């Protein structure tokens, strides 16, 4: 079809730009997921014994998701300026909840009799956490990480509005130049590549999950 071939042409002419945009988005996804993941897991582990602080941290994390993306991206600008930083902050705050919620739920779901026998055999609380609880909660946690990563890909398109780069740049430039030639292709580039990137990341994490889950517990936990 004409449309598709013209799109491929468009892409190949601007391969370096496409590459840069993909790279920028990927940078967001990787940095945000790592940072949010680290924080979420630490908080999840730290609050695992205290119901109140656990629920409180979940409530706080979920409030962030309520704030509209445009607002969260721009509200810190007076403090940190434009570009990567406000985008990172907003994406970071969004990415916390899915991972936190799944870490909490995953740790809660560990069979109490397994914990009892671990203690009875003489594992210290730290050893129980590292050798038993986290490995057993890992599939659920990974599902949360997947959601976070996908969320980040989708929302990162808005970064373009605050000069943060990413695939949103194509959408913005396409919109600005409508109905000039190649504007449609630009928009589609932004949209389709986001979807493809999301699918690729999802697939990669799924494979990671396969490799890091011992067969004894495979198939026990399902993501949404």
């Amino acid at each position, binding site marked *: 079809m004409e449309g598709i071939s013209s799109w491929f042409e468009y892409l190949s002419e601007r391969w370096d730009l496409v590459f840069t945009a993909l790279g920028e988005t990927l940078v967001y996804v990787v940095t945000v997921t790592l940072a949010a993941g680290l924080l979420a897991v630490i908080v999840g582990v730290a609050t695992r014994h205290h*119901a*109140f602080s656990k*629920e*409180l941290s*979940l*409530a706080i994390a*979920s*409030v962030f998701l*309520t*704030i*509209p*993306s*445009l*607002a*969260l991206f*721009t*509200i810190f*600008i*007076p403090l940190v300026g434009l570009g990567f930083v406000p985008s990172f902050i907003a994406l970071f705050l969004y990415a916390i*909840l*899915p991972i936190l*919620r*799944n870490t909490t*739920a*995953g740790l*809660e*779901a560990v069979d109490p009799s397994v914990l009892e026998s671990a203690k009875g055999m003489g594992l210290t609380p730290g050893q129980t956490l590292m050798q038993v609880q986290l490995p057993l909660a890992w599939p*659920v946690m990974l*599902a*949360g990480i*997947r*959601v976070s990563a*996908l*969320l980040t*890909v*989708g*929302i*990162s*398109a*808005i970064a373009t*509005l*605050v000069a943060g780069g990413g*695939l*949103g740049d194509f*959408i913005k430039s*396409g*919109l600005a130049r*409508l109905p000039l030639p190649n504007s*449609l292709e630009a*928009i589609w580039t*932004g*949209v389709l590549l*986001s*979807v493809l990137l*999301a*699918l690729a990341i*999802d697939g990669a994490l799924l494979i990671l999950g396969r490799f890091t889950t011992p067969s004894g517990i495979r198939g026990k936990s*399902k*993501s*949404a």
Partner: protein
Amino acid sequence: MTSLALSAQPSRRSRLTTWGSEQLDLIVTPILALALATLLATVWFYSDFDETTSRILEPSELARQAYQQLYLAFFSTLLVIVVAVPVGILVTRENFPSVKDGLVTVLGLGQAIPAYGLIVLFFVWLGSGALTVIVALATFALLPVLRNTIVGLEQVDRSVIEAGKGMGMTGFKRLTKVELPLAVPVIVAGIRTAVVINVGMAALAFLIGGGGLGETINAGLKLNRPSAIFVGAALVALIALAFDFAGGLAQRYLRPKGV
């Protein structure tokens, strides 16, 4: 359950805690909103706005934009409910299991489409104007409501439905008197999520000439006025938080007694 929409929700048995995250939600949200509002008020009343900023932040202008945003959010939510709930009901009737699975998968994948891109695409297809925005927003909010309708109806205890059947209730009666009421909490949760998404996404309406408070933010960005940016963003955030809070209350009080 707060919002099912954006996250993987592994099943977990609810414990009897005195402060569940639902209740805490109703506390944390207002606290944050209050803090933000205070910050906003401080900035509003105590900063010296230069002329450009004052023009951008003309109260009547802000009010108009807010109104626009709410108008768009309202109608798009209405559209979503009118489409998603019936489809959700239809698809959970016994004849359509594979349709349901296929639908949910497709819509799930659709979540990967950036909202920004979706709005722009709709603009390309449908031109500018309120209707375009409404349809675009509705599409984006479709998944949470549809999925929650499906989940809500499916989690109704089969034996209660059987009992209704045994008493001679027709399918329709069972639906309206048994299934829907019991599915209400979950469906309302989905609608609440959709409302918040819509209110938030409506801020992007300015991109395609739809107005809304995004215009203030955009003006601030274009003209490099940080205070204007902040005020616009804070207002958008506050409206979203307010709706989320209201939704939380609705969820709490619309729950049928005994569920």
